């Protein structure tokens, strides 16, 4: 059985998605403020981790890590479900822009969706 990560093209697909995804996120005033760190390159590296997770690739983050990692964003910067929806929309359009088929996109979005409660500390 091939995994989602293999089907979508593995690390090469993550690499291809980073720039377009980060451009969409930074270009969206509704969510850009969360990502405007002093060090853009470091922020871009975090997109790599995010995309690897969403593509079902190897990572070592637990739900608890996701909760801890975003807690300050929820409680100090007001991260909420609408922001989450925006990120999913950017994920979707990035993949569509790279020519990924609808069925695979749905699988990726489902993986990301599964982290909602943890990311938003619900």
């Amino acid at each position: 059985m091939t995994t989602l990560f293999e089907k979508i093209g593995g690390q090469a697909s993550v690499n291809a998605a980073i720039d377009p995804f980060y451009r969409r996120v930074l270009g969206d005033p509704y969510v850009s403020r969360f990502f405007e760190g002093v060090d853009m390159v470091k922020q871009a590296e975090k997109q790599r981790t995010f995309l690897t997770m969403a593509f079902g690739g190897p990572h070592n983050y637990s739900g608890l890590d996701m909760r801890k990692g975003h807690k300050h964003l929820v409680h100090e910067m007001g991260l909420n479900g609408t922001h989450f929806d925006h990120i999913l929309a950017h994920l979707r359009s990035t993949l569509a822009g790279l020519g990924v088929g609808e069925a695979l996109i749905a699988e990726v979005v489902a993986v990301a969706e599964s982290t909602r409660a943890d990311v938003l500390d619900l």
Partner: protein
Amino acid sequence: MPDISFEGITYDCAADETVLDSLTRHGVLLPSGCRSGSCHACKVKAIKGKPPVASQAGLREPLKEQNYFLACMCKPDEALEIALADASDKYSATVIEKSWLNDTVVRIRLTRPEGFNYRAGQFINLLRTSDQLARSYSLASIEGDDFLEVHIKRVPEGRMSNWLCDELQQDQEISFFGPSGSCFYVQGKAEQPLLLAGTGTGLAPLYGIARDAIRAGHTGPIQLFHASHGAEGLYYSSELEQLAAAHAQLTCTACVLQGDIPEGALSGAVDAAVVNRLGDLAGYRVFLCGDAPVVELMQRSFFFAGASMQDIYADAFSFTPAG
């Protein structure tokens, strides 16, 4: 099994064990995060021995070249001596020459200490021995030069810059740590277009990077932009002109925010002026240095103009917070 040395102690690494796991087993806790090569928290440096290629996957080229690797992905095939990512040695050098490049920028040339190796564009941390005050200054020299060169901008009330401008004398000794930074030219893709843009003394590392790229045989176009608030902040115009005259692939352009515009210079905000001049930046390798807010602005604008984040190298000259 290969040994791993860290901070003077040698540890054995079992077959199929990673450096991170081995050190953890010995009670040495390196910073770490995902343990799968994604987060780069466990990035360390091999100071002896060559880390396996797999342990460098995902690192940027300048880091690979400096033997950085991810401890969580490293099953060593040979003995390694490793150090934490920011470790650097201390050197001592003598001031050979001091000369003013404009009203507020002084050029200091130092002897190159034995054993000090660096890449053009990296910076050193100069140390004032009397009170251990340390500040970063970028190198304008290249490895082929037999001196080190820094450009110091006088900052009003600045402790280190005023001391360097006024007190430090020719023939005096000065200590420094380094080199640091990964804003430098890496060989390969000789035909790729390069964009070098900086404000003020941000020219220092860019001047080094441009000469280093040319020396390494770079054939693609090299676009260097030197930006300043006003024309009086520009310097090295004739050096840049000469360099461009000698190397057809290099173009140097000044950019001035306000006031009189020198002939051939661009005016206005440098990020917009560059995008206006060059258009689509897809495929460019970009080096940005100088004033932190302007470097961040350029990073963002050039990324939106098509440059890949992976191909943008930046050294923001952030200043040390007061206190």
